[in-house]
């Protein structure tokens, strides 16, 4: 199964391998959500939604539905 950001546990890190560009808004890519960059799950709200991430040094929160389209390799 392909792992996505939604699979990360709190404190875990991964490397982004791919993002499905149909679902991911350009703005997120521009904030650094790109293949090769690292992503860390800082904190989750109830039902892991939204997710508070550290992507390549940028701290941001996205909804789970978006996180499901960012593919990663867990470190």
């Amino acid at each position: 199964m392909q792992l996505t950001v939604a699979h990360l546990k709190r404190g875990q890190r991964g490397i982004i391998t791919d993002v499905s560009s149909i679902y991911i808004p350009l703005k997120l890519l521009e904030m650094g959500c790109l293949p090769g960059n690292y992503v860390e799950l800082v904190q989750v709200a109830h039902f892991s939604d939204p997710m508070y991430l550290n992507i390549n040094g940028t701290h941001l929160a996205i909804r789970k539905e978006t996180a499901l389209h960012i593919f990663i390799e867990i470190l």
Partner: protein
Amino acid sequence: MSKQINVALIGNPNTGKTSVFNALTGLNQKVGNYPGITVEKKEGICKLPRGVKAHIIDLPGTYSLNASSLDENVVIELLLNKNDKDFPDVAVVVSDVENLKRNLLLFTQIKDLEIPAILVINMADRMRYKGISLDIPHLEEQLNTKIALVSTRKKNGIVELKELISNYKDLSTTPCMNASEIDREYFDNLRKAFPNQLLYKLWLVITQDVNFGKTDRNEIDAVANFKTKTKADLKRLQQKETIKRYQFINNTLKKGQTIDLNTAKDLRIKLDRILTHKVWGYVIFFVILLTIFQAIYDWSSVPMDFIDSSFVSLSEWTKNGLPEGAFTSLLAEGIIPGLGGIVIFIPQIAFLFLFISVLEESGYMSRVVFLMDRGMRRFGLSGKSIVPLISGTACAIPAIMATRNIENWKERLITILVTPFTTCSARLPVYLIIISLVIPEGRFLGLGYQAMTLMLLYLIGFGAALVSAMILNKILKIKSKTFFVVEMPNYKLPLFKNVVLTVIEKTKAFVFGAGKIILAISIILWFLASYGPGDDFNKAEEIISTEYANQNLTEDEVNEHVASYKLEHSFLGITGRAIEPAIRPLGYDWKIGIALVSSFAAREVFVGTLATIYSVGSDDEETIKNRMAGEVNPILGGPLFTFASGISLLLFYAFAMQCMSTLAIVQRETNSWKWPILQLVIMSGFAYLIALIAFQLLK
């Protein structure tokens, strides 16, 4: 004539553009630690060395030149329209030293537009704390630009920045990288089709729907031959472009920036572990709100009492000190009590603004957005709607403007429509005075009943906003893509100066804004209350003296009867009694009715209006509150402000749409009259109904 150059401040959200703007122009635009504080173009003037004058333009933050929300469009439309009177001669790109990598993306795009650009690296005071060091000459060379290392907090680098701006002619306009490499063939064709146009500008126009001025758009649409790409293809190309830009930036920073992680300290992790916690996060948020309400009560009662009694003395002094006449009584009975009705609330309003400002400056707002997003979504709102809803407790107008950074139009529209339900500071005076009249002073578990009632009213406001959002979410058939990204800024110690300035500025705006309306209304009211038609008004003395002829009244008592008889038969009284049947079922008399009607201009005039009505013709000088407590219900006898009529009034004000300025701003932001009219009718109708039910049940 000295010449003037246009300087635009551009950069990612929350990098300190407005702080730089304030440092350059000496103005005090609002600064806050939340991405999306500035949503409109703001302008100011700065004097530069060698007699150059600069026209500085502060812009909303944007992550890139590909706009995804309304506030970002402002920037792109300005940069792509050479004919705009504000088109910049030089772009000052403000970046945050802690997020340099991401900030440089926008910088490389602006370089591609071949606009002379200066790079400001702001927040330099944080470098040591974060273990960051920079090789400025290397960066300048790689990026083809001049760099100013600035700290607006420590006031460093501003002089150097001014120097750089005044030498803007020396800046290179060569791009620092070549983005067209992502698809050579496509871009070559494009260049051939439009040899006179800037390639990157073409690309921006092709890939998005912003309004760039008709001519450009039509010209490009006319030539069909490059429309060979589907939307998905274009998006893939944009992705490639972004990767390409990041490659360049990473290479540049590899040598240009070093970060020593050992010295880097991070307060964020520790704080966020609690503040965004699944349980503690909410508990803390609730405690913060509770503290705010308690404080608004406890801290401001002393200055309030002082202001109240001062206005009474002022009124008395005017009456005794000035020669008798119409002007003196207009002053003493109309204007002074009317203004007193607003000035008395300055302490509370200031405390409210203080708390909001601290929440915004500390970076906590984004955490609340994070905590609330899931809950808010259930109501068709976005986590970002919480910011308008919270800042709506100050005033709905900036709150509605703050919705501009919500990406999704449906969520944004719903937020705009429901924000007026939140308890704005104009409702506060009404609440405070009525609560103090009808709610007992006791305490329960250390919390005053009065403070708790106030908190309850705020919750009712939020509740009404949420429920109506849910209904709107069901009714409105608007399809728009949902997507949600919010940046979580670093925590910052609120800058004392910023907080104080915001508080003063906003309180001033509140007092003067309301003051103007109140001045006008209290003058009108005084005239209407002091003159009347026919014998009833003009022969009041005779009528009263015959009516009470056989009851031995003292002179004072006679005067009182005459005054109230006159008031009742004045123009104001006649109008008031005409509307009385409509409001009697809610437990109000005609005087409250007049106050209610004048509140449709702005709610905060309620207390002032009552103060003016009550003081016309009366001799004894009393505080507003005592006067209200002394009012007698004309039908039932007993005090007019009872628990039942008080609650009914509170609820009426909680729900009714009584603010012209809000309606105007809703019209502007939604670009239609339909929404504000619906708001006015539905909210006020609902308010009437609820107030009616409450009074009938409680009386």
